[in-house]
């Protein structure tokens, strides 16, 4: 076994770039998170017609509102990419600027989502109303929870950059965060399509 270790591909790439091991580990976590979301999507797909006499998706959702949410999150994914470009160039001011823009857009998205949730609950359409709404709140709420965690993480890293600049370890952390943030945007594509657009089509 010990003879195989230096030749194993992971070791070889780790020699070139020790960060690649960390990145791969985080990538595997993200893949498992995709499986988590897939099971929530499957639950939603199974339950989306079980409204128990309550309202269905096309009576509840406002498409222009959701389109705004989608474009805000998409833009934040883009500005996160710009922040990473700045981090590779070791440009501290730009990193801070673009991550603050990303965080503000993320906060805007989250507040819109919470506004939608409180509106639904006030109208009596909470997760207790029907199987459809339970599945809806679980799926979209889990995404929102991820966004909240991402925002806290972003806050911590912005503070780190302000205080200590951009040593290699911080750039690695920023790279992991950007991976996470892009991943959340990808999950939202499917929430937008499957929950909101297909819900509006009444299928």
């Amino acid at each position, binding site marked *: 076994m010990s003879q195989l270790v230096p030749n194993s591909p992971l070791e070889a790439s780790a020699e070139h770039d020790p960060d690649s091991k960390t990145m791969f580990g985080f990538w595997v976590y993200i893949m*498992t998170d995709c499986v988590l979301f897939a099971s929530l999507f499957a639950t939603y797909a*199974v339950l989306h017609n079980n409204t128990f006499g309550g309202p269905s998706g096309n009576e509840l959702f406002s498409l222009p509102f959701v389109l705004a949410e989608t474009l805000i999150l*998409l833009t934040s994914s883009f500005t996160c990419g710009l922040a990473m470009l700045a981090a590779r160039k070791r440009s501290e001011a730009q990193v801070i600027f673009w991550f603050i823009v990303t965080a503000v857009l993320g906060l805007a998205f989250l507040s819109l989502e919470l506004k939608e949730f409180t509106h639904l609950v006030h109208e009596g359409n909470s997760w207790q109303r029907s199987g459809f709404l339970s599945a809806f709140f679980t799926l979209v709420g889990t995404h929102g929870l991820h966004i909240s965690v991402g925002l806290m993480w972003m806050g911590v890293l912005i503070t780190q950059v302000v205080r200590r600049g951009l040593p290699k370890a911080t*750039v690695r952390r920023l790279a992991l965060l950007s991976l996470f943030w892009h991943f959340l945007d990808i999950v939202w*594509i499917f929430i937008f*399509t499957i929950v909101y657009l297909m819900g509006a089509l009444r299928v």
Partner: protein
Amino acid sequence: MSSHLPTPAQPEASHGSLRMYVTGFMSSVVLTLLAYALVVNHLFSTRAVLACIAVLAVVQFFVQLVFFLHVGKESKPRWNITALLFMLLVVVIVVFGSLWIMNNLNYNGMTPTQTDQFIEKDEGL
């Protein structure tokens, strides 16, 4: 995720360029608006619109994988892609498997009258 010159300031090939991010962003916006317009205007039959927005979502998924996450840019032992493909396999099994099983359970749980109605509605008999 590896480069031939592992100096800290070296921009690595796997991290993309401004052009990649702009291309990814622009095409994602176009794909999103296209899907939205299709649903709002309802130009075709429900089934056709459904197929179109599903395809648009999958296309956008790949656009973001390539332009934002830089999948496929890593060097030879492609562990990231291997993990991604395995994840996709699990996701397909979980989602379509659940739908298949639950549909079947729904069908088997029907009373004979419901079954007749279902067959009438579903197969147009």
